[in-house]
């Protein structure tokens, strides 16, 4: 017992070794197949709020209601390179609301008041309608309800606002509740690079 291995100990070592090799081979196989980090991302070419042609339907707000994170990890992003910087932005204002004395719609579209409007560039003091306005979405307030996305969609706007996943909030559920609920299968897993590519371009369409 004290000198060398007993038969039982040797069998134990062998069995453990075999099990370790088995686990190791499986792990190696998976690592060889591994493809970087995978994140959930929304394909706005499929999302009903930004997809062309789906006009007049009610805004889909499943991204807000389904996400397991308290304030949904989905929020709206404005792609400034495509933003028209309109005087009356159909995503900022509720363009069907009554006009106030300054000639602008009296109601805002965002229920959480997450969009700020600032005049930019060379100002024309005579006519405010002749100036450009920047619309910045405060991502700490936005919960991805999609109202502004629908508002900015062509032909009303230029479609510069789309929904995107905030990866810093997203907990990467295996079974993403939004993906399960999405009627257009717009929510899919993608590599980080692809997820950012989708954000830049009009994905899918």
């Amino acid at each position: 017992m004290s000198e060398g291995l007993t038969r039982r100990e040797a069998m134990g070592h062998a069995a453990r070794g075999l099990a370790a090799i088995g686990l190791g081979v499986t792990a190696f196989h998976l690592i060889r197949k591994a493809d970087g980090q995978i994140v959930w991302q929304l394909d706005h070419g499929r999302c009903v709020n930004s997809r062309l042609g789906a006009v007049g339907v009610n805004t889909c707000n499943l991204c807000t209601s389904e996400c397991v994170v308290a304030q949904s990890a989905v929020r709206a992003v404005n792609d400034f390179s495509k933003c028209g910087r309109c005087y009356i932005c159909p995503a900022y204002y509720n363009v069907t609301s009554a006009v106030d004395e300054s000639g602008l719609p009296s109601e805002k579209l965002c229920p959480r008041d997450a969009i700020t409007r600032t005049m930019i560039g060379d100002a024309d003091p005579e006519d405010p309608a002749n100036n450009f306005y920047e619309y910045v979405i405060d991502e700490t307030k936005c919960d991805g309800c999609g109202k502004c996305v629908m508002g900015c969609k062509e032909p009303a706007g230029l479609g510069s606002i789309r929904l995107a996943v905030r990866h810093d909030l997203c907990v990467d559920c295996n079974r993403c509740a939004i993906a399960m609920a999405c009627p257009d299968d717009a929510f899919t897993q993608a590599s980080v690079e692809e997820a950012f590519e989708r954000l830049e371009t009009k994905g899918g369409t």
Partner: protein
Amino acid sequence: MIAAWRFTALVITILLSTTLWTSSAFGQPAPYDRPVDAAPQAKNIGGGYITPEVQKPLPRSYWLEVLDVALLAAAMILVSWLVLRRRNRAWLLLVTIASLAYFGFYREGCVCPIGSIQNVVVALTDPEYSIPIFVTAIFFLPLFMALFVGRAFCGGVCPLGAIQELVLLKPVRVPRRLDRTLGLLKYVYLALAIWYAAQPIADRDFVICRFDPFVSIFRRTGFAHMIGIGIGLLALSMFVGRPYCRYLCPYGELLSWCTRFASRGVTITPDKEIDCGLCADACPYGAIEKNRAVRKSCLYCARCYASCPRTGPMVPTVRSEAAASPDGGRS
């Protein structure tokens, strides 16, 4: 006749246009037309305007993921050292609380080897699907540990185990036959998890995540029925030691298979112990049979050591061979 008709038409037109004009000026929506056809670029806007970048919130950075894996490994090594060498429950409880805080409440239950079973199954069955190296590491590290030192992961690292461990107040002994029968549920759960994960993508389901009872507590939000089940299970685990781990956890099942090959484990020292049976009474998990620890169901809580009149708090010696040393074995 014609002149009269023209006059009436004129009056109606004027009236209509004035009403329309006044109504649009007072509180009616303005007719909306898209003012632009193309996005103005920085040079049209002027005033030194620079077009901002599209906002891109980055995913959890790579080094943080490495940190998660490192913490998991470190915590498991610490637990096995505390339990197997120091036989110390007090420090183990501290590690348990730290793990619950980090892996549970901070990471919101999502560095989870239990759920990663499904990802591994999908990655093995679906040629299109692959999992990050990070997930592979999270899945295999506790299994490797179990091959050598037993279920150290369950002891004080797993947040699901930790939350049940910490609420256990007054354990009742589950009759052995009932304990064994309920233990079979783990096989059913594991089989279901693998079966649903191995389905093609349209029918795929991650049942372990779907019915994870404590994740909604860690996230402080979730489906009402799952919060209810979680609180119910927590209430149950005040009296029944770790019901989820013992009767449901599919990963615990994999770990207990691995412990069959383990070279070390919690041992009720066979030669010099007094066989008083206090440890068996102290074990809330029914893992001590005939005064010997059963490796596959031992959850590394070190209660047996804490209750032992030889190694417990009453006699501050740690190991029987250390008792002979002059400093009382605390070195």
